[in-house]
């Protein structure tokens, strides 16, 4: 006999369902008067936030090519200097004017989501090598049984992307572009494909 390890098991995931908006973005679905604003809505940067202003927008697209109109997307990112506004950030203090987290429901007609934010700085990988600037995304919706985790890198960071420790370990190089947001001016477009030839890379983190 040995001592029991006594670890608990994570609670199983269940789909967010079609009415995730009620709980997470009630004002968006027209239920007003309970929360002043929807958590994570609105611009992620204020006047004092350091960094280059960008808008990240895109759609989540199913296996028939149809954009999901009931998805909810959350974003988590570092500040302009590569620091996270989190107690687990021990390398330095993040910009107090940048929370770094946002939440956006897909538009009920077009399926588009968008985040007005800043471009993040580089964050080191676990071995100290720099990772190229990226944002972390979490996608839930009706029909998605467990939240999907992915990253978006930036098309204007070709050199950094080429050296990125995460991108460079992806065996099927043809899939790497599914993680790169296309930057045109201040807008970065990132469509997330759940299936098909261009299926986005999702991570088991």
């Amino acid at each position, binding site marked *: 006999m040995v001592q029991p390890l006594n670890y608990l098991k994570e609670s199983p995931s269940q789909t967010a369902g079609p009415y995730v908006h009620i709980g997470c973005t009630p004002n968006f679905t027209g239920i007003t008067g309970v929360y002043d604003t929807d958590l994570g809505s609105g611009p992620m940067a204020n006047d004092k936030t350091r960094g280059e202003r960008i808008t990240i927008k895109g759609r989540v697209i199913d296996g028939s090519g149809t954009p999901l109109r009931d998805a909810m997307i959350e974003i988590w990112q*570092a500040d302009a200097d590569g620091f996270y506004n989190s107690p687990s950030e021990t390398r330095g203090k993040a910009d107090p004017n940048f929370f770094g987290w946002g939440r956006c429901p897909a538009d009920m007609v077009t399926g588009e989501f968008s985040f007005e934010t800043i471009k993040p700085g580089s964050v080191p990988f676990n071995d100290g090598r720099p990772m190229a600037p990226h944002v972390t995304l979490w996608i839930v919706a009706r029909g998605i049984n467990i939240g999907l985790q992915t990253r978006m890198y930036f098309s204007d960071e070709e050199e950094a992307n080429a050296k990125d420790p995460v991108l460079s370990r992806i065996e099927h190089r043809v899939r790497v572009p599914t993680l790169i947001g296309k930057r045109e001016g201040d807008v970065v477009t990132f469509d997330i494909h759940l299936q098909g030839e261009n299926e986005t890379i999702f991570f088991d983190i």
Partner: protein
Amino acid sequence: MKNTVPETGGFFARDREIHPPAYTPGYKTSVLRAPQRALISLEGTKSEITGPVFGHNMIGEFDNDLIVNYAKPGEMAIGQRIMVHGRVLDERGVGVAGALVEFWQANAGGRYRHKKETYLAAIDPNFGGFGRCITDENGYYAFRTIKPGAYPWPNGVNDWRPAHIHFSIFGHGFAQRLITQMYFEGDPLIWICPIVKTIPDEEAIKRLVAPLDMNNTVPMDMRAYKFDIVLRGRRSTFFENRKEGN
């Protein structure tokens, strides 16, 4: 948040066997929305072991009271009064302090307050159907609501959802992010629900079924249901924070 050294360890690998797979044809909507390629394994980096922390000051006085938070002054939502309470723990059994817990549900008749909802059950003018709270230093949370009704949904021609409450939980790292559903002890619909049955492991399903908790039931007022939620655990960093070369 506790006033202790922040935790920086990586998270335990997620046990995918206890979670539903992406592709579950019994739940038809998953068919076109399930990624088909293997997930790429990535040990968490700073980008995933960090996460947003929400302050207690964002919570309104009635955010955890669904009986009154949408009701007209002096009125209440219709239905069986219940309290749902429990702890947010991690896989080490440690209470997760300062965790934001959001919840939403149908009303007593099984009807949601949503633009796209078409079920013929009546809307309760005094019930919004959502709330939130932040766990205390021990990971404890509690809210008051009415017991939601079961309702039919378009999947099979006669599929019904068991009574349930949706939960969205933030831990301390973005990799812990979780959405799940709580069911009620004794509901026969649990075991024939195509969404419940996306979870392959019966023991795992049972961990989503809240028991009636008579100890915390308030006499002549409301029954209690106890629902603990477990988020991923994280490693000790005892041997990981040394300077290079040591």
